[in-house]
């Protein structure tokens, strides 16, 4: 029998171009999260850091140890969680496991990345280092995988190019109301469709920016949560799955098996199904990924996500609001922080604390994608009783 896992605190730093380095970003979010929950640092038993590449980006390793010391969480058990872009979601999975198993009664999860001091070319190459040698030597990047898949999707489902642009327009519009977002500026469809080509048929506004930032969540058993607050969320279900390392070995690149399988696990553990989800944060590192996750998670039939988007179903006032935070597209994508920041948004939504972004939500879902669907974590959260 597992313990019900509660989330009793959440925080995120300003996302964007920051002067702070990764150790400082992690400490900023971690301290704010403990403060939000009213929990003393010495109560933290496990301290996890979601981070993809602090060693490669700035020559800083051992970040969980550094964070625990900076926050005075000693002698908490520490662990780094690296699952590339889904490190944050994997951190939520690890934190959930730590509480559900009884190994910890207070787990602090902090995700963070410092990236903007690197050139776009360098940052892109660090991220692309996750690829197989037969891919890497051809100069494949994650954006080029997106271009390859977008062409296949648009061609295969006779979807209009404009539908992808509308994902960018929607998520930028949502980001205006997120004070932590890197871009708080609306863009119109014409601007998106006329922006420079990055990976044909995708253009600049189909891609998320390079970002510095950090986010944090505090987990404990639901029985203990009530000692701290009446306002907490519960992890209703979580799932994680892996697809092929070599992307071209997938029989259909427009179906992300990791999304499908992680979603299936999360639905099964929670007892919910796609119709029960009131709000979702999807990993829109590229606009095409929002379509692929909508379909993989059962929010739209295969080949129909573009139509649901065109019909306004995913707008903030739509049937299923997606990326109310602005998504990675507008909020930014500090690799290890992004999955945790998705959790932050769902936490705020189910507790009714999302301010101008608030939608009517009892149950929310976050889907965090690593690589090009190589690793995926899906988490379902609801308000505590």
């Amino acid at each position, binding site marked *: 029998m597992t313990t019900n896992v509660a989330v009793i605190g959440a925080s995120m730093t300003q996302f964007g171009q920051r002067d702070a380095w990764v150790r400082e970003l992690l400490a900023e979010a971690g301290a704010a999260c403990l403060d939000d929950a009213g929990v003393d640092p010495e109560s933290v038993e496990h301290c996890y850091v979601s981070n993809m590449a602090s060693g490669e980006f700035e020559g800083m390793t051992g970040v969980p140890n550094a964070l625990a010391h900076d926050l005075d969480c000693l002698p908490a058990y520490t662990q780094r969680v690296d699952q590339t872009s889904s490190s944050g979601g994997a951190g939520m999975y690890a934190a959930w496991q730590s509480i559900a198993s009884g190994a910890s009664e207070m787990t602090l999860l902090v995700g963070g990345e410092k990236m903007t001091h690197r050139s776009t070319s360098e940052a892109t190459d*660090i991220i692309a280092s996750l690829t197989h040698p*037969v891919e890497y030597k051809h*100069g494949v990047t994650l954006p080029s995988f997106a271009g*390859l898949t977008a062409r296949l999707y648009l061609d295969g489902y006779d979807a209009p190019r404009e539908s992808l642009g509308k994902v960018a327009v929607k998520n930028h519009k949502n980001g205006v109301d997120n004070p932590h977002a890197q871009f708080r500026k609306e863009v119109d469809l014409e601007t998106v469709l006329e922006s420079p080509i*990055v990976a044909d048929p995708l253009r600049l506004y189909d891609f998320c920016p390079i970002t510095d930032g950090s986010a944090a969540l505090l987990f404990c058993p639901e029985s203990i949560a009530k000692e701290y607050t009446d306002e907490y969320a519960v992890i209703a279900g979580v799932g994680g799955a892996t697809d092929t390392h070599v992307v071209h070995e997938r029989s259909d*690149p427009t179906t992300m098996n990791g999304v499908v399988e992680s979603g299936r696990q999360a639905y099964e553990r929670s007892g919910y199904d796609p119709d029960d989800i009131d709000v979702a944060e999807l990993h829109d590192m590229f606009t095409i990924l929002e379509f692929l996750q909508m379909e993989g998670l059962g929010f739209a039939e295969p080949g129909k996500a573009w139509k649901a988007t065109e019909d306004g179903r995913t707008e903030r006032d739509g049937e299923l609001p997606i990326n109310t935070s602005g998504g990675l597209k507008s909020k930014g994508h500090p690799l290890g922080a992004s999955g945790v920041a998705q959790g932050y948004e769902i936490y705020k939504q189910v507790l009714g604390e999302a301010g101008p972004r608030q939608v009517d939500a009892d149950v929310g879902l976050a889907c965090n994608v690593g690589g090009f669907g190589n690793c995926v974590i899906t988490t379902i959260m609801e308000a505590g009783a």
Partner: protein
Amino acid sequence: MSHEDEGSATSVDRDPDADGTPPMEATRYADGSITYPGHPVAPGGAEPVGTVDLSEYTATVVTWTTSTAPPPGVDAPNHLAIVEFDVDGEPVRALGQLTTDEIGIDDEVTPVYAAELRDPEAGIREPESQDWDGYRFEPV
């Protein structure tokens, strides 16, 4: 190296070994499946039993893109495609650079050897950790 599929209807009328170029080596497994690159076991768990030189075959374009922002050591624009070979009825996919952007889905392409696809010294990956030659795809 073995060339198990010479004489296939889709094979190219040349011997890539004749000019000293290495093969585009895929792995065949006991269950008949083939992957490029090879793995210690097939997706279904079957053991490797041999190799197939894909450079002897033509392929069709599954999808393609032109990247205008390639990583260090790669010339811009970088044209890329996922292609599918038909090795005696067994599909095998590969990804690689294209020699041109004058291409479309379902076009037929042939592998063309390049001694260096990318400057090994320019990127983050340790140059000695992998090979840097390989095959681009050229429209037939």
